């Protein structure tokens, strides 16, 4: 499946079908992220039930602590 992740066009394996699987694929920690799918924020409790489609635009924003 071809999707856009943080502005980069990316081909992800066919077994990545949901937002939760995509975050797992990128080894992202759900707790410190904001996730946007096609310009809409995805609630934290909806990652598993949010399916991905070819051409989706996903933005991951990671809250970090350093300073």
């Amino acid at each position: 499946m071809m999707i856009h992740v943080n502005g980069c066009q990316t081909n992800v394996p066919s077994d990545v079908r949901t937002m939760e699987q995509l975050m797992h694929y990128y080894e992202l920690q759900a707790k410190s992220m904001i996730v946007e799918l096609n310009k809409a924020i995805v609630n934290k409790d909806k990652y598993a039930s949010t399916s991905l489609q070819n051409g989706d635009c996903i933005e991951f924003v990671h809250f970090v602590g350093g300073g």
Partner: protein
Amino acid sequence: MQERYSRQQLFTPIGLEGQQKINCKTVLIIGAGALGAASAESLVRAGIGKLVIVDRDYVEVSNLQRQQLYEERDATLRIPKAEAAKAHLQSINSAVTIESHVADADVELLSQLVLEADVLLDATDNFDTRMIINDIAQKYNTPWIYGACVGSYGISFTIIPGKTPCLNCLLETVPLGGATCDTVGIISPTVQMVVAHQVAEALKLLVEDEGALRQTVVSFDLWQHNYQSIHVQSAKQSACTSCGPDATYPYLHYDQQMKSAVLCGRDTVQLRPAPGNHKIDLNELSKRMASLGKVEQNPFLLSFQPYNMKERMVVFQDNRVLIHGTKDIHEAKKLYYQWIG
């Protein structure tokens, strides 16, 4: 037009009126590391009326790569950052009132300092303090500007009580185990980019141009060349315990336990004994430690390295202790009880 600020006043959204507002406002900067030093310099040059700086740490040689206000001499003498920052800032602009606090940014101190602040600027290195800032900002109805960075990645968000989502809405819990300056390092351009976003937003607030605020979470990676700006208004939670109608400000609740934190970018643990503890007498401690290891003292702190040990302890006047040479909180506490009592 004041010659000093003429170029800033020529910028139409600020103008003479905006400059006069900047000249009589107060900003509280929490943290005087890389972010804090850079935003402090920027605001002092811009002619802020009063700047209040809180920082618990002192200058070390590993800070000099990115913490722009400090010099080799500050590191050699282990000058507390808030004091070193004040001295340098005052020589940049003597008209600005600068107040420094060599202390932990805890609930008690921030509750007092927020009262005169028009804007709170986050320059901390940990989420524990940010959650306190978030609750303080909501309780006292004062805007605050989140900023953070690791490696080549940075992020910022301007939080306006009653309008935007707060940090608790966005995160729900305090994130643990994320990347830190300890694990992935930090380059100074990342710091500068975060500060550019924070100070620009602060100036908008100071000149009361709220309509110009960005309203998005901005994040970027300077090494990978990406920049994101995300609208998060839909993430505001009506039942948020920090900013909802029945807010309880959960991060302000008093805790009598010793507090501890691993310091970002340092192989160091900070321990802060419960507030009811007796003050440590540094002169007495110096005598007690003299035969047990290497002791160095200045008016602000005492450094002690036991013989044949890699760890070094630094005790501040307000009872805080930094244990250098470990990232393990339990090990740090053990050393604290072992050597300081």
